[in-house]
């Protein structure tokens, strides 16, 4: 036994030099890599054990294959699980090195120069303006007792909260990608809102800058204690240059009695080029538990990027009178594929859920809404309303609606509606006649089509999202 352990330590020393600043974990997925990640983050033993448990479980799982978009087999042994795959010297040195098309997009989105640099991992020596900004915010939050920090920091400073809630919504044993994340997650956000506190500002990954690079396995945990409220924005609002890279993030939300969490995402990862080469595989697990009575979780997502988007932000409505909402826009163009939707699991009495999904498909793209509404036997007076609308642009793309509805309660009420349509020639003609060119007209009509979802977004996000909608569809109408 002792000999074996010694053997391990030897290997460890051999595999990873002491100069931590310089190394990244070698390619591949194994216990040593996980130990390395845990070590480098100076994690307590319980955290490492937890990761290893996930790793063991992973060995018994296989990748799901029921989804519509198929992708080439990922070689998990060929990935880096710590440190970004691109070293600093591979990164573009300045904006001139970037694809001019990207810069064009930034300009259209109105992203300031400093932000642009940041989003492309350009090494900027100057101190960000926002660092000081972030500090001021941090002070304001600390005053109210709100914890908002990288999850690696929370593991050190708030182990009780992390131990209690991490994996309580997405268990270690969930599914392949979620379990993979549990084993190897590098960083992410942690939010705790104390009892009866209304978070005074929108929290966003934008503000939590200079936390270490989160990489492809992000882990987010948000806890809203009794009577609290928080709105969280996840902004991947600029394209990242990555080639067919896997993003398997996990996001867990917990809302206790009378608490409310609003989680908004605008996702615009690199979708691959117009021939479908490259782009991100966005396989994210997002799940919220309305644990307390009268609690509410609301997901809003605008998904315009990624080569493949495959995610179902879900709500487990445990508390009586709890409410789950899902508002989604998924736009796919060229060869992009999306299989997205939600699960609303009604367990408590008088629980309510609402699903509004808008899918837009252009070029050669495929867009699937897949959702589950499950009303449990005990969920008396549960209510669900679902509306899924698809818009097709051109006849080379596809739009699919696959709702699963399971109702085991006679006092419940479920309504589901879905439509598929196209932008009519007449609508375009009308707009053209009023002086709008083809692209302006399409953008206007599609934004109108998405209105019910866009209006759920916080103001500053909504403007950006509206522009994104237009940009994503450029060139899709001849």
């Amino acid at each position, binding site marked *: 036994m002792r000999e074996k352990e010694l053997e391990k330590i030897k290997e460890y020393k051999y595999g990873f030099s002491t100069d931590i600043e310089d190394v990244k974990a070698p390619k591949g997925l194994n216990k040593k890599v996980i130990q390395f990640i845990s070590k480098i983050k100076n994690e307590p033993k319980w955290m490492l054990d937890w990761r290893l448990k996930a790793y063991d479980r992973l060995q018994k799982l296989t990748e799901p294959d029921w989804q519509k978009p198929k992708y080439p087999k990922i070689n998990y042994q060929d990935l880096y699980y710590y440190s970004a795959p691109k070293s600093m010297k591979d990164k573009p040195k300045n904006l001139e090195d970037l694809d001019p098309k990207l810069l064009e997009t930034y300009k259209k989105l109105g992203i300031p120069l400093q932000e642009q640099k940041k989003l492309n991992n350009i090494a900027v020596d100057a101190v960000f303006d926002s660092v000081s900004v972030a500090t001021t915010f941090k002070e304001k939050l600390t005053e109210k007792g709100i914890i908002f920090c990288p999850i690696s920091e929370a593991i050190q400073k708030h182990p009780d909260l992390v131990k209690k809630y991490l994996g309580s919504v997405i268990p270690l044993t969930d599914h392949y990608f979620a379990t993979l994340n549990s084993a190897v997650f590098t960083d992410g956000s942690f939010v705790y809102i104390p009892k009866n506190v209304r978070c005074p500002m929108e929290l966003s990954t934008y503000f939590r800058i200079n936390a270490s690079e989160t990489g492809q396995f992000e882990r987010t945990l948000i806890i809203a204690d009794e009577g609290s409220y928080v709105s969280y924005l996840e902004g991947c609002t600029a394209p990242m240059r990555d080639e067919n890279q896997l993003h398997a993030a996990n996001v867990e939300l917990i809302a206790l009695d009378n608490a409310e969490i609003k989680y908004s995402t605008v996702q615009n990862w690199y979708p691959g080029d117009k021939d479908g080469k490259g782009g991100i595989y966005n396989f994210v697990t997002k799940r919220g538990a309305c644990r307390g009575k009268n609690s509410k979780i609301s997901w809003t997502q605008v998904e315009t990027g990624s080569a493949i988007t495959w995610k179902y932000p879900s709500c487990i409505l445990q508390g009586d009178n709890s409410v789950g909402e899902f508002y989604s826009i998924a736009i796919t163009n060229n060869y992009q594929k999306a299989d997205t939707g939600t699960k609303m699991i009604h367990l408590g009495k008088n629980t309510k859920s609402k699903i509004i999904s808008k899918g837009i498909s252009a070029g050669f793209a495929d867009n699937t809404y897949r959702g589950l509404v499950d009303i449990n036997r005990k969920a008396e007076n549960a209510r669900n309303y679902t509306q899924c609308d698809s818009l097709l642009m051109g006849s080379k793309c596809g739009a699919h609606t696959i709702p699963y509805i399971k109702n085991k309660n006679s006092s419940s009420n479920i309504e589901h509606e879905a439509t598929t349509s196209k932008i009519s020639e007449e*609508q375009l003609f009308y707009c*053209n006649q009023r002086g*709008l060119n083809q692209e302006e007209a399409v953008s*206007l009509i599609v934004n109108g089509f998405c209105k019910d979802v866009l209006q759920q977004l916080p103001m500053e996000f909504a403007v950006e999202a509206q522009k994104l909608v237009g940009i994503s569809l450029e060139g899709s109408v001849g």
Partner: protein
Amino acid sequence: MLKINNLSAKIENKQILNGLNLNVKAGEIHAIMGPNGSGKSTLANILSGKKGYEISGSITYQDKDLFKLEIEERAHNGLFLAFQYPLEIPGVNTSNFLKTSLNAIRKSNGKKELDALEFLKIIKLKAAELKIDEKILNRQLNVGFSGGEKKKNEILQMSLYEPNMVILDETDSGLDIDALKIVANGVNSLRDKKRSFLIITHYQRLLDYIKPDFVHVLMQGKIAKTGCSDLALELEKAGYEKI
């Protein structure tokens, strides 16, 4: 302003217009009347650039070849069509639509784009002038509008864009007398020496309120008769058969 020369149009091998000639000078109001199927709406569609027709002949608009202008370029150049059946566009706020399109036109003419506040001031004024309830501005574009509300919205747009050449495609059909007055009022208030109108209508009714300079009768794809405003009354009494 607008010169149509020997215009013929076919759709799916059906001849609709057959050698139509028309000359509209600046400041004139022309009315085109004709029975159903005589090609009235086709003429309006072709003028505003709708695709799908097989066309021969020529149209010059402000000394430009109209066929060389895209639909939106025609709008930018001040050609406005009030649709017979204005489209419903779900989710698009009417006020937002008006602002976006007005700014597109202004931009193309090298004018400064209006911000939300400036725009609101103008549109409220216009709505009040035309006695149109400004509540429609906050509704989705034409969605759930009554026939009258849709037509009023078209007139509101007309007065907002201040076009040079206005084509009204059966704007009067299906309107009650009050809505009809609003339409007529909108046209009359815009009437000046530089602006021309082409009023396409089936009935003489609208012409009680808007006095045209010329009345043309369109039959079998061409102008069968041209006269002054009395011709409309004559047609109302005698019908089209006599022509």
